């Protein structure tokens, strides 16, 4: 869509790591091949998802305008996934490991937001960035520009290891035994693209917390949660991690279970690798709703899961990356850029309020952290640039995103607090009330998500407006509540761990569909999301503000001294609280009398469910075989391009690489541990399993195509002329076709293993 995509490719040449450049080139080729119809749409969907390129509401070309579903007349082109129109805009998720960013990265995010999206950058509940309304043809350029500042979108979506989240206060929090940052960093880059983490039926989410008691890392709701622990062993303070597994929210939430009470740092990467292997081998692949790791643990029980993981761990080949980073564990340690100080006197109540709610003392004397509270996790390009300036002026040059869709500035000298407030205020970033009732978390909901049932962001905006009016008079007990909203039961807004949560639902009333929210009570934000709430009643969306008022007022009036909300709900009982609200489900107005009741917040269209599509959160189940074969065909295509460019040697090399990759794809369906790093092994295994057994023989041509492989491999070092490269590309293509045929035959015969 952008005219400058080729310009960026040349301008950024040499400014991107070879690894990232190669990955992005590959993705661009895959886009080209899909646009020519040469890659299956399901394979391409999962491919783009694993690059962070996501679908968005209405990308099936249908939209309900309040009077029925209408076609959006996009040009006829191929699809970019099942039922997903090529030109329909999508979302780009940008991974920010443990939320860590620097000023240059903020500025890049500003530029990309301005040039490619609808002008707003959004921070997610897993510390990622999301840009919306992105055209797929622009995504390689966006990836290149991100790569030029050290950011990748790889495995931001799809059935992969998602962003490794981490406590944003790591390294400065008074309550942590040690800084989890270097461990989160190491796990991020160890698992990124790891061959043992490519065969999942669903996503896999790791998280690091610095302590047990707070919610900053939310270890309890992750597939793999690691919490810093220190033990005294032989008189020494020794670092380790409490490891929990199988946590998750969604429609069937699970608290994570303890896998190990104290895992030494040198074991966290191999153990994560072993878990990934077990999840890849044994996790559900067919029933998507049962494919997360929590269900494998449900099925097996924790003990069997542990046995399998430990057995897999014992079989892993040693990898120096497991421990290399430990020798330089302080490499990421931040040093203050300004001297510590004392907080100046404050005579402005608004500033005092901000200081009270948004700053926290660091464990280092003279410094505080400052939270930048963002409305619904949104900010503009100008605000990102102003924030970059602030980061440069007041911090060591970095900041963190948070799971509450905010930023945390660290190492702010107490002496600078007033100047920082002024700078943030100039950027309209000085909202008080971080992490309290005003700081409502919401997923994208019906705004952009294909699964959204109700408008979570619309409701959040409405509640913010309502609360802002009385913010200075709110009782402290209410102020400290956490409100979180999801547009559907899948809990991207983390409603289960809120004091008061809401998730989108629908009911039919008076012959019309009416947007509703389930009211979820009893969740616990503290202790890393220590318990999950349950829905007590579904209320029409337009009456949720009243429901919130009633719940909070009842709490203030009836709580015992200093009683927190979660125990209050337990003591009073959900039946009583439901009784407070149940009349809000009755007395439906006539449509003609109150049409707004039948629309959602911020959306005047008559409410409808027609826009709900097939979600892409669960990705597409694509086997390793399909991925490998798609890659083999892409490499042949690249060989052809190189042949045309006169790069005969490279073309010949690529043709052989494609053959080995296709052979490996077949081998892998019988022998999962075969590695591409060792082509000799691939050839030997292929010969033993498919040639000597004649399984790979073509019904008519016999061993001919397999012989192409062996002959090409025998001559792997040869110099290629135009003719020889040309011939090898032809043979490579024929071999790939024969592998497809072989695969189909063995699938039909049921002799995969």
């Amino acid at each position: 869509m952008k005219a400058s995509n080729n310009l960026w490719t040349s301008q950024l040449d040499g400014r991107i790591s070879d690894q990232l450049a190669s990955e992005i080139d590959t993705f661009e080729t895959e886009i080209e091949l899909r646009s020519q119809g040469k890659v299956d749409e399901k394979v391409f969907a999962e491919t783009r998802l694993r690059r962070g390129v996501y679908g968005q509401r209405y990308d099936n070309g249908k939209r309900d305008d309040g009077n029925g579903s209408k076609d959006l007349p996009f040009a006829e082109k191929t699809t970019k996934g099942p039922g997903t129109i090529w030109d329909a805009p999508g979302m780009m998720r940008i991974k920010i490991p443990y939320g860590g960013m620097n000023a240059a990265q903020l500025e890049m995010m500003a530029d990309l937001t301005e040039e490619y999206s609808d002008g707003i950058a959004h921070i997610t509940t897993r510390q990622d960035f999301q840009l919306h309304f992105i055209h797929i043809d622009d995504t390689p350029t966006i990836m290149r520009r991100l790569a030029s500042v050290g950011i990748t979108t790889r495995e931001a979506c799809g059935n992969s290891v998602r962003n490794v989240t981490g406590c944003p206060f790591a390294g400065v929090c008074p309550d942590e035994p040690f800084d989890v940052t270097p461990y989160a960093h190491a796990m991020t880059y160890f698992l990124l693209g790891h061959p043992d983490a490519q065969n999942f039926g669903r996503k896999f989410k790791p998280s690091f917390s610095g302590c047990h008691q707070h919610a900053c890392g939310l270890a309890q709701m992750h597939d793999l949660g690691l919490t810093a622990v220190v033990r005294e062993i032989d008189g020494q303070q020794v670092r380790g991690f409490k490891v929990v597994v199988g946590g998750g929210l969604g429609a069937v939430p699970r608290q994570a279970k303890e896998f190990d009470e104290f895992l030494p740092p040198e074991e966290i990467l191999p153990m994560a690798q072993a878990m990934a292997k077990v999840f890849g081998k044994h996790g559900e692949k067919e029933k998507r709703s049962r494919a997360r790791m929590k269900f494998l643990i449900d099925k097996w029980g924790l003990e069997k899961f542990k046995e399998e993981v430990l057995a897999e761990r014992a079989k892993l080949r040693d990898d120096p990356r497991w421990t290399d980073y430990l020798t330089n564990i302080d490499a990421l340690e931040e040093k203050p850029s300004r001297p510590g100080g004392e907080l100046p006197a404050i005579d402005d109540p608004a500033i005092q309020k901000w200081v009270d709610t948004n700053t926290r003392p660091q464990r280092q004397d003279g410094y505080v952290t400052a939270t930048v509270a963002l409305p619904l996790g949104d900010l503009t390009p100008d605000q990102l640039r102003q924030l970059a300036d602030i980061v440069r002026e007041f911090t060591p040059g970095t900041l963190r995103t948070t799971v509450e869709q905010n930023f945390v500035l660290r190492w702010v000298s107490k002496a600078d607090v007033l100047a920082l407030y002024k700078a943030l205020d100039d950027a309209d970033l000085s909202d008080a009330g971080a992490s309290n009732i005003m700081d409502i978390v919401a997923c994208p909901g019906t705004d952009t998500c294909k699964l959204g049932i109700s408008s979570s962001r619309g409701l959040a905006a409405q509640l913010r407006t309502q609360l802002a009016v009385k913010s200075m008079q709110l009782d402290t007990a209410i102020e400290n509540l956490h409100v979180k909203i999801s547009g559907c039961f899948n809990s991207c807004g983390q409603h289960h761990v809120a004091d008061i949560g809401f998730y989108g639902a629908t009911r039919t009333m008076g012959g019309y569909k009416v947007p509703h929210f389930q009211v979820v009570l009893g969740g616990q934000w503290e202790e890393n999301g220590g318990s999950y709430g349950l829905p007590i009643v579904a209320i029409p969306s337009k009456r949720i503000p009243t429901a919130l008022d009633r719940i909070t007022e009842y709490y203030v009036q009836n709580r015992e001294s200093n009683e927190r909300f979660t125990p209050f709900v337990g003591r009073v009982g959900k039946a009583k609280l439901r009784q407070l609200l149940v009349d809000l489900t009755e007395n439906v107005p006539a449509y003609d009398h109150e049409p707004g009741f039948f629309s959602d917040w911020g959306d005047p269209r008559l409410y409808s469910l027609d826009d709900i599509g097939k979600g892409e959160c669960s990705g597409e189940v694509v086997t390793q075989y399909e991925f490998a074969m798609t890659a083999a065909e892409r490499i042949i295509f690249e060989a052809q391009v190189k042949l045309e460019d006169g790069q005969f040697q490279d073309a010949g090399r690529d043709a052989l690489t494609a053959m080995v990759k296709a052979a490996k794809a077949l081998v892998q369906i019988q022998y999962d541990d075969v590695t591409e790093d060792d082509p000799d092994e691939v050839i030997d295994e292929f010969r033993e399993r498919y040639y000597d057994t004649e399984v790979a023989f073509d019904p008519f041509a016999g061993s001919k195509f397999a012989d192409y492989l062996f002959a090409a491999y025998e001559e792997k070092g040869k110099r290629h002329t135009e003719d020889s490269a040309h011939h090898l590309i032809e043979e490579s293509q024929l071999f790939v076709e024969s592998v497809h045929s072989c695969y189909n035959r063995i699938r039909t015969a049921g002799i995969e293993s």
Partner: protein
Amino acid sequence: MELQHVTAKIFVDGAPSVDAETVVKVFQTWISEQSMNELLIDVADYEHVPKGPGIVLVGHQADYSLDNMGGRLGLRYNCKVAREGSNEEKCLHAFRSAAKACLRFEAELPGIRFSRNEFELAINDRAIAPNTDDTRENCESIFNRFVREQLGQSDFQLAYESDARRLVGAVVSVSVAIDFDGVASA
């Protein structure tokens, strides 16, 4: 220098109270009718973000927004696709599209009126138009020709954006009111 992705923002006169819900309704109607030159897709509401894009009507070839970026309310047209023609024609296309949208707004949203004397042009692409002295120099001649020849203005001023990190562009002030109807129908 070949410009692409020209944006034009026509400022609102005065400081009217604009109800976001009404603006959303107007944009929803435009989608329903598919009545602009572009394929219109969705409405995004960012009223909660100060000095933000406000309400955005997202299209395939272009976005329209009633935005408050820079603290000034106005109707922005943001061209997202490459266009044929001279640079001045691309500027005219963006301005004309914005002016047409302003006329519709004025008809459908009584109480709002857009300035006929002040607007902003910018190039939303940093590869094509980084905000450098060279680019500003090039844009100066292009913008001058556009205002003089396409809008028929002889007395005008251009104030450039000087922050190198922001998009290259200029606020254009003209002494004689621009005839939106004339521009729209030309």
